[in-house]
């Protein structure tokens, strides 16, 4: 089957603002899925609530648009149930690092068979501009009117601390890099995490497209050894005048994905329209 990026298009009005970084991310996602020859009905995108989560309004695949911050557990359940689906989780920084923080820890621990894209605009877009955990110190927002007193959370450091199987950062303004990373992420067994820097022209007037552009550089072209988690952690400390992007860590230990480790095999079937009753006579007899 030859799949085309257009196959993922949906004829629905897009409600993102002009200039929003989300458009580029969606383009790249569609192109990458097509490159991997994944037909829409074999893809499941689980999205959180937020502007990023609205991705599932605009991409023709199976979708579950769920609760704010709960996309990873839903994706976990769905991917356990059906081994035939390529499962993507997509949400914002508030969704993933505030409301959903706990699930990130445990998705990494389980190594769930899910590619997780966080559109990190360092702000709450949909609810009109409140601070996010990644908002920088001093950011003036409706909930930090006197300037954010805290340093922003560094998601790469966090996820390296969780030893996720695949840890990357990209930027919506660098489609080529994003595409290459996404492709590798989809091919990775288990949990692949990508923090995607994304300008929000409506609410984040500090971390704009050009602010990012002036700072990002690619650690992979500079020869970073993606098997070295300590080196990755060291690189991840950097945030400011220069912002490292690229694949920080790509675990060479070929860890089993969660489906395999929990079910003992990658294709034990659970889901489907047919439900063969399980014979529990033997189990019952133990109570006699």
């Amino acid at each position, binding site marked *: 089957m030859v799949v085309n990026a257009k196959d993922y298009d949906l004829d629905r009005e897009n409600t993102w603002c002009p200039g929003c970084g989300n458009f580029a991310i969606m383009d790249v996602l569609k192109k990458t899925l097509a490159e991997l020859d994944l037909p829409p*009905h074999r893809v*499941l995108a689980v999205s959180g609530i937020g502007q990023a989560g609205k991705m599932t309004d605009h991409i023709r695949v199976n979708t579950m*648009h769920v609760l704010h911050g709960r996309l990873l557990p839903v994706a976990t*359940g769905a991917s356990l149930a*059906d081994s035939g689906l390529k499962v993507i989780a997509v949400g914002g920084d508030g969704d993933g690092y505030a409301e959903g923080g*706990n699930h990130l820890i445990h998705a990494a621990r389980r190594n769930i068979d899910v590619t997780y894209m966080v559109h990190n605009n360092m702000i709450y877009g949909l609810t009109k501009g409140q601070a996010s955990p990644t908002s920088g110190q001093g950011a003036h927002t409706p909930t930090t009117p006197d300037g954010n007193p805290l340093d922003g959370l560094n998601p790469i450091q966090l996820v390296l601390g969780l030893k996720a199987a695949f840890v990357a950062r990209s930027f919506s303004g660098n489609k080529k890099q994003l595409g290459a990373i996404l492709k590798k992420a989809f091919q990775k067994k288990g949990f692949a995490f990508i923090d995607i820097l994304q300008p929000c022209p409506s609410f984040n007037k500090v971390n704009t497209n050009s602010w990012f552009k002036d700072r990002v550089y690619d650690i992979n072209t500079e020869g970073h050894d993606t098997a070295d988690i300590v080196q990755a952690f060291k690189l991840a400390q950097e945030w400011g005048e220069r912002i490292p992007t690229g694949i920080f860590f790509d675990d060479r230990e070929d860890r089993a994905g969660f489906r395999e480790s929990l079910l003992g095999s990658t294709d034990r079937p*659970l889901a489907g329209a047919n439900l063969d009753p399980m014979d529990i006579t033997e189990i019952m007899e133990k109570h006699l």
Partner: protein
Amino acid sequence: METASDYSVKVGGEAGQGINTIGSILSKSFAGQGLYLFAHQDYYSRVRGGHNFYQVRVASSPVYSFSDSIEVLVALDQASLDLHAEEVRADGIIIYDQNNIEPDKQTENLLGLPMAELGKEHGGKKIMGNTVAAGAVWQVMGGEPGILENVLNKLFLNKGSKIAEANIKAARAGADYAAKNFSGQCACSLEKTDHTGSMVLTGNEALALGSLAAGCRFMSSYPMTPASGVMQYIARQARRLPLAFEQAEDEIAAINMAIGAACAGVRSMVATSGSGFSLMVEGLSLAGISETPLVIILGQRPGPATGMATRTEQSDLLFSMHAGNGEFPRAIIAPATAEEAFWAAVHAFNVAEKYQVPVFILSDQHLADSYSTVEPFDLKAVSIERGDILDETELNSMAEYKRYLITESGVSPRAFPGQSEKCVVITGNEHAESGYSTEDPVVRNQMADKRMRKFKGLAEEVKPPVIYGSEKPETLLLTWGSSYGACREAVDLGNKQGENMQVVHLPQLWPFPGKQVQELISRAERTVTVEMNTSGQLGRLLRTETGLQPACAVLKYDGRPMNAGYVLEHLKEGGVLPW
């Protein structure tokens, strides 16, 4: 009760001393002898020490609750003697280890048994003293030795034949000691009937078995007393069946994982208790709007918050009925016995899938942890009804698949991601038939109406009230869940004493079977609600749904279950009126 034998044995001791071992050896042996039993457990929220007991009532016809007086007390520590000696009937006995415990001089009917000593001597370990005690009790009560040994064999076989043998030796030592020293002391004499072959099951085990029989294939949960038993039972089967169990990081993850799996096409459930369920409330609401079938086992215990972790209560009825922001249909089932629990689970999964709604099974610690004798379930009678699910051919013939197609019944045919080339769109936002979000007021009304229309179908499938006792009662006891046992026995006792009583128990509380209840109440002279909470929740629900108000309510909320004696006593006092 026309029972010939009806005896109670209480085994008391600290957490960790092994009262459960003695209790379950005896329970299984009673069943092996063809008798009926009801055994409840009372324990503290601690791993060591404290005072716990296991009390088993055994009789020649079915029993549903416990007695206040006991025939045999097995005291593994001083506290058990101090606390329970009074409950022993004049013709009862107290077995204790005279090497550890110094009884009060006034205590009567004491029979010293050197448990640890005999355990060490005959079984090789002091802890075998527990089996020694079981053997002694079995002997004094007149049980058939072969039956007890059978039970020991079965119980310990998976630990190796050596251990099984050691236990049998220990039991024999206990029996021999009892035969020599206690003979004639105990008034009990266990019958033997041919009613053998029944299972000894807790409510939790029955729920787990029922869920497996119903084809549950996914369970995610977070440990919490008294619901942990269900997940642990399921976890043990997971590798052997096409079934996934995962201990989630928290209850939020648990319910959302189950929703993900359910949307992908498998029968899914969670089990929890009040605090944990509180954390599932948002997910519940997601199941409501996304029309996801989901079974929630809610094992109640006393709240608020952490409350009393290992005790019992029935105070989450109105909470589960109204939980979740916004309005959506649901069903609430509340089995009263282990037997009912099995069928409740089967019913729950069918209703959940047929109507694509969340379904609650309300249990409580008393039901969850109590053992009773149950006939093996007729697995052929288990029918799996999944409701309207499209097959691939149907899907392929469609131009477009609409997950939320508006129908008369409110139920839209389901399809699963990856099942065919049609994409499936599921959401927690208000949506059009396609599944994509909308804020259109007309569509919103249609969708809200469609969801609410499911109530009709749900109401048609309600499990009807269970009625027992007089036909035209003077007093109707209206009850639910595990309180049924106490009420049923109160009716028997009361009617024997010349009262005219009936018990009506509602195995399903939502949709509320209002007409049937109204009809039943109209035939009774007065209705009294009986439940384990402070505010009379069933009474409030009754009033909401029928306008009727019970004459009074018998309530209990100290964390300990009620029995027939409690019900009758409080009926005499005019009940505890919460209003």
